[in-house]
């Protein structure tokens, strides 16, 4: 699962693990560049690139104009011409100006040139509700990208995964959207190897083993699912918690195996129900595990309304209570 694990470990938050991964690759690979709004002198609005411009210079860690299409479009040119841009979009909710570039170019240049050109790049974006950020900052729109063949989508839920997956993303020959849950940025620390290691893109993990029902969650929702699993355990329900970690391509086997074992699934995500990645997971389970299902697959999601201004965001988000209720309904179906 993880390669080159050095036993030297340091406690890190998720955002520190991100910085660490960037530092590892900036040191190792002279073609890597960090580009984005406020990533240089300021070290990023979440300090994800803190100290990197000092260490690697303005030429490698570049403050760009406020221009998402410009950042991503220019990175296409850089990538096709030998560089590895690691782009920060300040918040996922502001990626839309770059959507055309990502959809029509980033994801298609390999296909369009039958592999003669490719655009290995990483687009990092903080996302998700729960930190009382202003409007538009808090959306979970991963499904706008998982439906885009040519792109990979990764979303770590822990510091350890964040570092290993980000390094893997930077080394990936194809473009990767790397989603960082703002709510998870500093929610906990974990021992993380100080050296380089990678976690394979496309590999999910079992966060907690269980037998009655499979909970599938990513990003900040893993913690919510774990909390619900604990509460369910008190009621005698054994939950397996699965974090796919990569949202495209999904770890079909891990998911199918778990659901076939438990016969039940509850999917938890912040995005709306309609069009959320949960629907893909329902379809995946339908396709792979129909005969094993003892109950319909349940989804606990953000509601089908825009993510509200922050006074109501806690009401919008899945809570352990909502997940628990869904677990109970599924188990007692």
């Amino acid at each position, binding site marked *: 699962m993880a390669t080159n694990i050095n036993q030297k470990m340091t406690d890190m938050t998720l955002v520190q693990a991100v910085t660490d991964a960037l530092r590892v690759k900036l040191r190792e690979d002279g073609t890597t560049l960090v580009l984005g*709004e*406020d990533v*240089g*002198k*300021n*070290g990023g*609005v979440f300090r994800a690139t803190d100290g990197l411009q000092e260490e690697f210079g303005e030429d490698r860690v570049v*403050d*760009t*104009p*406020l*221009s*998402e*299409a*410009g950042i991503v479009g220019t990175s296409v040119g850089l990538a096709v011409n030998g560089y590895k841009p690691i782009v920060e979009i300040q918040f996922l*909710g*502001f990626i*839309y*100006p770059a959507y055309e570039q990502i959809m029509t170019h980033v994801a298609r240049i390999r296909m369009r040139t039958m592999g003669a050109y490719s655009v290995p790049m990483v687009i990092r974006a903080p996302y998700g509700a729960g930190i*009382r*950020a*202003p*409007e*538009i*900052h808090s959306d979970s729109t991963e499904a706008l990208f998982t439906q885009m063949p040519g792109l990979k989508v990764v979303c770590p839920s822990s510091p350890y995964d964040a570092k290993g997956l980000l390094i893997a993303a930077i080394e990936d020959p194809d473009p990767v959207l790397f989603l960082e849950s703002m709510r998870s940025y500093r929610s906990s620390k974990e021992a993380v190897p100080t050296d380089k290691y990678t976690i394979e893109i496309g590999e999910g993990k079992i966060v907690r083993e269980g037998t009655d029902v499979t909970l599938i969650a990513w990003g900040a929702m893993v913690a919510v699912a774990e909390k619900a699993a604990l509460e369910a355990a008190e009621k005698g329900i054994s939950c397996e918690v699965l974090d796919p970690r990569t949202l495209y391509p999904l770890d079909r086997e891990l998911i199918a195996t778990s659901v076939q074992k438990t016969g039940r699934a509850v999917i938890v995500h912040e995005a709306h*129900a*309609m069009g959320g990645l949960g629907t893909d997971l329902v379809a995946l389970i339908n396709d792979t595990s129909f005969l094993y299902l003892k109950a319909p697959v349940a989804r606990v999601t953000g*509601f*089908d*309304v*825009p993510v*509200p*201004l*922050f*006074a*109501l*965001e806690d*009401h*919008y988000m899945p809570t352990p*209570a*909502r997940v628990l*209720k869904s677990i109970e309904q599924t188990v007692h179906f």
Partner: protein
Amino acid sequence: METTFPMRRIIGDDGRIVDETMKDLLTAELAWRLYTEMNRIRTFDRKAINLQRQGRLGTYAPFEGQEASQVGSALALEADDWVFPTYRDHGATLTFGADMVKTFLYWNGRVEGCVPSKERHIFPPAVPIATQIPHAVGAAWAEQRRGTQNIAVAYFGDGATSEGDFHEGMNFASVFRAPVILFNQNNGYAISVPIAKQMNSETVAQKAVAYGMPGVRVDGNDAFAVYFAMKDAVSRARSGGGPTLIEAVTWRYGAHTTADDPSKYRDQERSRDKADPLTRIELFMKERGIFDEERAEAMRTKHQEEIEQAVAEMERFSKPDPNDLFDHTYAVMPAEVAQQKADYFTLRGN
């Protein structure tokens, strides 16, 4: 084609008139109006920062330093005009007539803070940078179609000029000769990024050349200069003369937002070296002998009271209502959302 974009000033840092041709227009009444409104919004701004520090308000975007730009521009409007602000333009919207309690509510993450009053056309602050610019153009175009003399103003920052929506909005404004003012507050920074890294052009105003549109550069800390530049542009727009880009060169004294630490990217100690727009007009008024400390004191007291009262009302305001999460997405709620709402309230137990 315009070829130079000198910065227009009417009074200097020391409050003395530098453009003598304007002398007669700088009446005591106007000076007091500008001064009063600037004082009002500065008091609001400082209060908001304090409230945020005390945990009584969410992340807040202060505008101290930009009062002359915001007040000077807003006072040149009429009640039926349209205003499309950003998150940093509540100084302008308050001057234009926005409700102060709602403005506070907005900064507490309350959607109620976005609801315009019946008396003023004020769009909710645009959070995605530059997206409000085409909106203002469209609203202005609608007024033009109806044959009114109303106009629209889009407020935006220096960083916003790098976005495609700035460009597309400018182009539409010029092609359709919409009665719109593109009011840029060049405060030197987009969060941490200084203007020299944002653009290679010496001024924002010259960007108007790309659209065959008049571009005006004005000292944004000179309330008179802003006011009269805006008046000119507004009357051109009202009389069918089309859009104008105004660059008000100003400075944000404080942080980008209360979540920002400006000392990471600039010498914050020296940030106040730029002439204060309030001091400047006060010096002018003193110089002209129209200042009156008693009147000023009364004014300050009045603003303090108004603001304290608005804070009290904001804090008395009813709790956020989860119904509002579900009720306003469509004119008629889709069945699926109705089900989600019902489930939500069932679980909640009411």
